[in-house]
């Protein structure tokens, strides 16, 4: 009987569809972490109270950072879990090669990041409504115009994709060689800790290089470059990965 020719795009599309259907744990954990993030956000970031000229005034600060942080954590953990053997073997039961699996995983991760940005941005409104109801006065500092919303969402998406790509790369390295991966994570943690304390180190320069850029195009370009680099490393590492050993 004749052999079927399949195209790579077709296989990748089917694999992404399969992942959306079967990785239910990932989506449930999104819900749980965001709801948790909402609860923690209501605790506020800080408060001040002042006796004033007679009446006491208490001020509380709320921000969106916890929600974004929770979403980033969800993405980081799940991207790393995608490289583990349970998910890997599930993929290879169906039609898959290493290259198609890498492409499918990256497409899936990008769609997860999109879901993450949209849900985290929308869930800030839940926080706002809650605060409106609870407090008598709610002041929204730095509200965003429509264009700013879109552009900052794009920036958020790119950052999240970067986080996912980093997690996936680290996960692939760990799968390949446990000790190298462990050492690499330790190195990153130590470098991160150093960069918090000391200004002017090369690590800080790298971080500021990305974070202090205010031009949208340049920022997207830099982030795409970083993502491409991480993608390349993942490919190098997972190319010879055996399954079901």
């Amino acid at each position, binding site marked *: *009987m004749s052999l079927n020719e399949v195209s790579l795009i077709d296989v990748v599309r089917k694999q992404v569809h399969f992942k959306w*259907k079967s990785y239910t744990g990932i989506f449930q954990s999104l819900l749980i972490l965001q709801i948790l993030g909402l609860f923690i956000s209501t605790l506020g970031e800080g408060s001040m109270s002042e006796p004033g000229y007679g009446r006491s005034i208490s001020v509380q600060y709320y921000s969106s950072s916890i929600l974004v942080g929770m979403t980033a954590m969800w993405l980081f953990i799940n991207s790393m879990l995608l490289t583990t053997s349970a998910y890997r073997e599930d993929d*290879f039961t169906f039609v898959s090669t290493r290259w198609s699996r890498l492409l499918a995983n990256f497409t899936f991760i990008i769609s997860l990041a999109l879901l993450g940005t949209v849900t985290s941005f929308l869930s800030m409104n839940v926080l706002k409504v809650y605060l409106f109801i609870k407090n008598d006065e709610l002041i929204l500092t730095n509200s965003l115009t429509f264009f700013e919303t879109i552009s900052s969402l794009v920036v958020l998406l790119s950052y999240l994709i970067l986080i996912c790509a980093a997690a996936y790369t680290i996960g692939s390295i760990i799968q390949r060689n446990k000790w190298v991966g462990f050492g690499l994570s330790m190195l990153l943690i130590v470098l991160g800790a150093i960069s918090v304390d000391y200004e002017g180190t090369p690590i800080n320069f790298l971080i500021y290089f990305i974070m202090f850029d205010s031009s949208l195009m340049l920022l997207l370009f830099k982030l795409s470059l970083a993502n491409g680099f991480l993608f390349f490393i993942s490919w190098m590492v997972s190319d010879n990965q055996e399954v079901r050993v």
Partner: protein
Amino acid sequence: MIECKKLSKKYRSHSALSNLNCTIQENTITGVIGRNGAGKTTFMKLIAGYLKKTSGELHVMEENPFTSLKVSANSIFIDDQMSLPTSLNLKELLNSFARFYPNWNEPLANELMTYFQLPQKAYMQNLSKGMRSTFQAIIGFAARCPLTIYDEPTTGMDAAVRKDFYRALLKDYLAFPRTILLSSHHLEEIENLLENVLIIHDQKAFMHLSVSELKESVVAVKGEKAAVNEFASMHNKLSINESFPGMAMAVVQVNNYIRRENFPHLTFSNLTANEAFIYLTDSREGGIDRVFERSELD
């Protein structure tokens, strides 16, 4: 369809296959037989593209199975450790397979599910071992891949289901010919099903021949001890033991047809393929009786 030349797979602590040569034609049912740990599963996983060979050449559909998309799309590997996602029930799993494999036969899958009484809404974790094996066998049938590999598919199945499985395998193969590799410990059950047998022994392809050739290559000889010994010394003796005092039975590997009339004092009998396989691959002289004989002496 499958070509191996000096195929080797070595791990850090041991070697699983070394210098295996074989060629498997298209549209045949080949049984992959071997002792425990001989390397059958490793061989089949190499063909399926799960493992990477250490050295040698391996071509499946004229491509390297480890990296080829064509091989993955046209082959399916069924064993009892099939990794299936736990979040999908049986119906959804079948749908997932249907999406990936273009030759998928949906009516056949549904009919088989009803026949074997597998509930469509159940989850894999809740099934018994035998039902899981049955489900995986159904996947193998319905997928109709040009290369279907079964690695001990009947583990856990009861005898009736096993019989049904072999029958279904044969019928589907006749309706839709494809290359099937089947490995099983119950050679006696499948020897009527197989066309060829690939015996893997000592990490090499020990023998690759058709079932009838296998049966003809080994013969059991009974008679007086001296005559039996004489006969056995002329050919490759596989085993010999005394059944009665003065009488012996030997199992002998023969290369060509023996004229039985030349040996009037000896009784020849044919063996089943399974017995032939056991004697051919048994490296220990005297079998397990020797263990007990030695212990009695102590």
